[in-house]
């Protein structure tokens, strides 16, 4: 007897919470695109960036990542307003989650967590800067604490654990976007970190809370990071010696993002014995999904560590391996950001409409003269021209991320090594790694997806 009536529309991104998208057209049209050409062109662009990086001097790298003060001033009162705004917003969405309509795409609780924070904010952090400081629901606590900075320079292992837990929750929980349920979990998470802030000081957020560390790292990529304007990544470039935990956090971000793409492919579903045309539901694949996530984390950590070690040894083991590894890991941040933008772009195009409608409904509540009932559309997945544009933007995000990563890692290598030659030798294994990763990213975009 047939188990599935409609495998035709088994689409993509179904493992991401609140992603209402599952449409055959986009995936089908992508399969008709000359994706091999795109992949070759993307890898070609990355190779060109390798050549440019190889010719770069330390002074040149310094100029490339130079930044200028934007002349911004500190406004304590504005900061206080932002803190209360973040807190008030969070409490409001909690109430909406418990009391509002239990619609995962209309209720503000899942829209806040999965559309605003999970889909949109990472890209905004990268492009614009630290908007999280306005949304952070814990920041106001700092206003009442005298020992604000305590603990800020300690390792961020607790934040890494939180980040991995949030990612796993998003990927394998049976109903991560059920509003009331999510509100309870979010409230628990918020209370836990609130307690930790009062116990350890507001520096806890910078080392213990997953979202804060994630968004701060992404904001470091912004051209407007830290009140200065410059090449994207200039703030990362200026980091002297990152903590090991922060380096591993960066690797975990890339591993999570990569697995998020891999687990939807026909290839992966075949590996875990799932028919890609008849995905049986999240509850039926919890164990393989968790194991796959853990395996992806271990695989990237080990392979990247080994790649760095090889480069470090080839270049004569100058300086500490730990220092070399930590800086090179930070250079992965642009790739992680590129993966995020590429992976969630289509989800954003659908869920962004739900968020917009929910916000417009709020206005309508107060102004009954606004008469409209917009419908969600996924028509852009049906048009070859728009699918091609979407695919190009996704592929560009992947390629630009890798180019930036190569420039950053070369620049770090120049800083650590005595000579340009030594720097280049230390980068050889990483160059192979980056090119392979570019291929992986573009292959993921072109692959048929089954969930």
């Amino acid at each position, binding site marked *: 007897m047939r188990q599935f009536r409609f495998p035709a529309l088994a689409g993509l991104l179904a493992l991401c919470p609140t992603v209402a998208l*599952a449409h055959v057209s986009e995936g089908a049209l992508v399969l008709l695109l000359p994706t091999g050409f795109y992949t070759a062109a993307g890898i070609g662009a990355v190779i060109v960036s390798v050549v440019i990086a190889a010719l770069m001097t330390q002074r040149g790298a310094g100029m490339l990542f130079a930044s200028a003060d934007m002349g911004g001033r500190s406004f304590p009162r504005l900061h206080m307003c932002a803190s209360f705004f973040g807190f008030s917003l969070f409490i409001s969405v909690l109430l909406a989650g418990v009391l509002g309509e239990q619609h995962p795409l209309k209720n503000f609780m899942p829209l806040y967590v999965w559309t605003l924070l999970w889909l949109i904010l990472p890209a905004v952090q990268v492009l614009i800067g630290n908007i999280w400081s306005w949304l952070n629901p814990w920041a106001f606590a700092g206003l009442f604490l005298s020992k604000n900075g305590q603990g800020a320079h300690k390792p961020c292992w607790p934040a890494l654990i939180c980040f991995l837990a949030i990612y796993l929750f998003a990927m394998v929980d049976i109903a991560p976007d059920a509003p009331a349920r999510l509100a309870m979990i979010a409230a628990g998470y918020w209370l836990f970190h609130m307690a930790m802030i009062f116990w350890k000081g507001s520096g806890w957020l910078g080392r213990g809370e997953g979202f804060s560390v994630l968004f701060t790292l992404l904001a470091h990529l912004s051209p407007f990071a830290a009140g200065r304007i410059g090449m994207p990544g200039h703030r990362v470039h200026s980091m002297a010696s990152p903590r090991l935990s922060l380096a591993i956090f960066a690797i975990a971000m890339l591993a999570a993002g990569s697995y998020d793409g891999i687990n939807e492919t026909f290839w992966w579903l075949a590996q875990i014995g799932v028919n890609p045309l008849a995905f049986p539901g999240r509850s039926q694949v919890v164990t393989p999904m968790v194991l796959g996530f853990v395996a992806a984390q271990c695989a990237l950590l080990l392979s990247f560590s080994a790649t760095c070690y090889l480069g470090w040894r080839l270049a004569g083991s100058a300086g500490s391996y730990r220092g070399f590894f930590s800086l090179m890991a930070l250079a992965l941040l642009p790739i992680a950001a590129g993966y995020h933008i590429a992976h969630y772009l289509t989800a954003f195009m659908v869920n962004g409409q739900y968020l917009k409608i929910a916000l417009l409904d709020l206005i309508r509540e107060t102004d009954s003269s606004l008469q409209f009932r917009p419908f969600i559309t996924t*028509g852009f997945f049906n048009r070859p021209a728009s699918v091609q544009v979407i695919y190009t933007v996704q592929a560009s995000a992947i390629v630009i991320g890798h180019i930036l990563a190569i420039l950053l890692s070369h620049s770090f290598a120049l800083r650590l090594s005595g000579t340009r030659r030594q720097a280049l030798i230390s980068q050889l294994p990483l160059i192979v790694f980056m090119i392979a990763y570019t291929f992986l990213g573009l292959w993921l975009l072109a692959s048929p997806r089954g969930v």
Partner: protein
Amino acid sequence: MTSTKKTAISRRSTLGLLGGAALAPAVLPGLSGFAQAQSSAPIKIGFQLHRTGIGAAYGRWYERTSNAAVARINEMGGINGRPVELVIEDDGTDPKRGAEVVEKFATQHECDIGFGTLFSHVVYGSAPRAGELKLPYFVCSEGHHVASGALNRYVLQPGITDVKSQVQAMAPFVADNLGKKVTMIFPDFAFGHDHRDFFSEAIEAQGGEVVAKIAIPPTETSFTKYFPQIPRETEVIYHVMVGPAVLTFVKEMGEFFGPSRPEIFGFIDSLEAVDLSSPGLEFLEGTYFWEGNPRYAQADQSDHDKAYRAAIGIDDNGASLTDSADVSTYAHMFSCWETLNVIKRGMETAGYQGPADRVKLIEAIEDMTDMAHSDDHPQGAKLFNGKTHQVFGHQYISQVEEGRLNVKHTTAIEDGFYEDEVDYTAQSF
């Protein structure tokens, strides 16, 4: 002075309230009809919706259709004088979550019934729980699972025919008009196997035969190597390929055959919600499709179909009025509309007042037979089989002509009949 002012305000407020009360029925259509009811509390229909997960593309249209159907029912005065409320819960297109959602309907939301499930694996996961909770559970999945006897007395499918009936009804047209020697190309899993088994049996009954059965692995994305397996004697190709590689399949099949090809027949499931002007689909020109409900408004379009499209906001090409590229799941989503109307009729016949009358509701629907082509049943007339809890109806066979589907044949309801495989009425409640 103070007293006078208070009185004036009070009088004005009172007048305002009275005026508001008088105006309310005009502003809120259908409200006046509810006033006659013994209880004005809404009838709560738990809508188990695929809002997320692999069913989400369908779910979006099922929700839009169901909201339009409920709005119409309420405009007509609701059910038994009471308004109808859809209590929607997302099941994530997951069987385990589906069972939890059914439980929420029965215990937390105090719904009168459950409704709307599409994907068969979610039906399988949820139906046993509905039976345990004695919650009438109306599915819109087309699966043969209801009529096969695999479920229980609380599960009904009165709004859409099942796949066995659909496939079987195609055989006479294929044999009489396209050819008797058929090669089937289908994905190698349960969905494809059902088509293979049901159609093989049906075409033999028409004096035809399946000369080759080409099973394609579900992970396949290139099909050229399979086409040489099509026997030369083939008169008709029957295809039900699905998934993201479907456009590639059609394109490669077109390239393989060139200008001389056999007749081709498929199920629109392959291309539901897909724009027929998509690249690669040019080859489909002149081929035939089963349609549950014709996506394109036909020359002889009924007023019922017109009203149905208008209520949901669908244009004559089966796409959203607000975006012509946003193609609906037109061949299937009428099931929500029609099921809700069957529920209405059943509740009215049973004099349904609340959960205590759930058994009466099921018995009332089991007693139904004819459903006339009407605004309640815009897809066409139907015949309900109370024993198997399954409805039977007309199927449409359309040909692709200049990039649109034109209906060439409408099957008789009887074409989809098969022997009863269960008698749910013999089961106790």
